[in-house]
């Protein structure tokens, strides 16, 4: 019970601080709008924000699922053999470390502008944390259990699916949690980079453009707020998954009683 109150309390503190900064530093609403101004703007722009959030959610979700599944599969490959790891990992790093802006023309060209491009950008951004974590997880398996599988003459596939994958789950889920926060901003960034407004309405990234040029700063922050809310849905989904997968056996779920 009490645990639900804490973020609210810290939130109240945070908002007070926010007001304090506004007043004390003499900033104006086009640099740092007050929470109230933001809420007003959010209410005023609610239909557009909702529609845009819907569009962004689509890109974010698709990109996230792609990153989650491809990241999982890639890590299996990387975890499966040291040779594959040595061959592929450097190129994955290259992919990860190439600024998206450089890839933008190619993305637009191959994936197409709009949604496909946005999904690609989202995927690119949220993919690597999953791979890095899951791979570390696959390699961190208890060697006593590995010995058990070796003795059981387990195939490489069995070792991976029955042993390494479950034991890497805490790592994978930590990676998914990172990806969950990256997906919505990735989609917004994607819209910012390769979005278009085919069909007339864009996502939150488009609104960022629009509110920025129109100097509707409270509305801009309301857009950011919307993006955070979207992100919370993703994070909550991952937290649920985390609970479902781990609570029965993993030490991160502290038994009250042991």
């Amino acid at each position, binding site marked *: 019970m009490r645990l639900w109150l804490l973020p609210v309390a810290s939130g109240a503190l945070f908002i007070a601080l926010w007001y304090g900064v506004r007043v004390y530093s003499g900033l104006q609403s086009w640099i740092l709008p007050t929470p109230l101004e933001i809420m007003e703007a959010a209410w005023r722009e609610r239909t557009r924000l909702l529609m845009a959030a819907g569009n962004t959610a689509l890109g974010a979700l698709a990109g996230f699922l792609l990153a989650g599944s491809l990241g999982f599969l890639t890590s299996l490959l990387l975890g499966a053999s040291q040779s594959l790891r040595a061959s592929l990992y450097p190129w994955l790093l290259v992919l990860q470390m190439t600024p998206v802006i450089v890839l933008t023309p190619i993305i637009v060209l191959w994936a197409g502008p709009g949604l496909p491009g946005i999904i690609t950008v989202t995927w690119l951004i949220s993919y690597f944390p999953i791979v890095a974590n899951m791979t570390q997880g696959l390699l961190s398996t208890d060697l006593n259990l590995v010995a058990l599988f070796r*003795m059981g003459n387990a195939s490489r596939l069995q070792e991976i699916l029955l042993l390494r994958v479950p034991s890497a789950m805490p790592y994978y889920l930590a990676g998914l949690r990172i990806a969950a926060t990256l997906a919505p901003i990735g989609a917004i960034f994607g819209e910012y980079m390769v979005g278009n407004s085919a069909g007339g309405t864009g996502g939150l990234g488009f609104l960022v453009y629009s509110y920025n040029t129109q100097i509707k700063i409270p509305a801009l922050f309301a857009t950011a707020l919307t993006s955070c809310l979207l992100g919370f849905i993703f994070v909550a989904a991952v937290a649920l998954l985390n609970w479902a997968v781990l609570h029965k056996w993993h030490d991160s779920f502290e038994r009250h009683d042991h």
Partner: protein
Amino acid sequence: METPEPIVNFHSVTKRYGSGPVVLDNIDLTVCRGDFVTFIGPSGCGKSTVLKLVSGLSPWTTGSVSVLGAVPRAARDRQAFIFQDATLLPWLTTQKNAELALRLRRMPAAERTAKAREMLALVGLDRVREYYPRQLSGGMKMRVSIARALTLAPQLLLLDEPFGALDEMTRNHLNEELLALRAQSPFTAMFVTHSVAEAVFLSNRIVVMAAGPGRFHAEVAVDFGYPRRSVLRERPEFQTKVNEVSRLLHQVEEVPA
């Protein structure tokens, strides 16, 4: 009676881990089909290491090792190993853990479920089939591990202090069950224990090891013949044998400090 077929052969084997000190020094050993060989000796003398060499989990340094006519790894499909730790998968229930070895052998689900149930019943764990390892007591975990290995009905069974965490009754009971299983589907056993009585009750051969570096000090033949019943423990020749082994152990063990 046929001439016994040798199935494990150590020839002048030495072992060191990495660049560490010599852990096993110049070991020669032949285990024949049907043998029940027990290794007994001070803590850290290399008993677990011997089993690891036989299973191919750890490479030997010099000499040669062959198991079931092949290099150790190649014989794993006919072996089972009960490790010194329970090594259960924390995300599987008792039942699923007990099924694991059969699952790795791709036995159909229904069959392996039945087999695992049977072995869990044997070790007295039928009531905790749905528990996760963290809900089990130390001895219960070890018994799951024993059940898991016994589902395999191997030709060669390696047992590293399987009963150390169990009370005497359960221990004696499992000793007898082990021999009963062996009578049903014969296997060769390499066994590590710290209990001399257990060693004498189970084995036809007892190897007494010495430490620093690990080596074979003496071998004792136990020729009571199988099947053996619990009454054997009451007989004077049993006690004589126990005393003989204990005396050998006293020779090799220098009390620390």
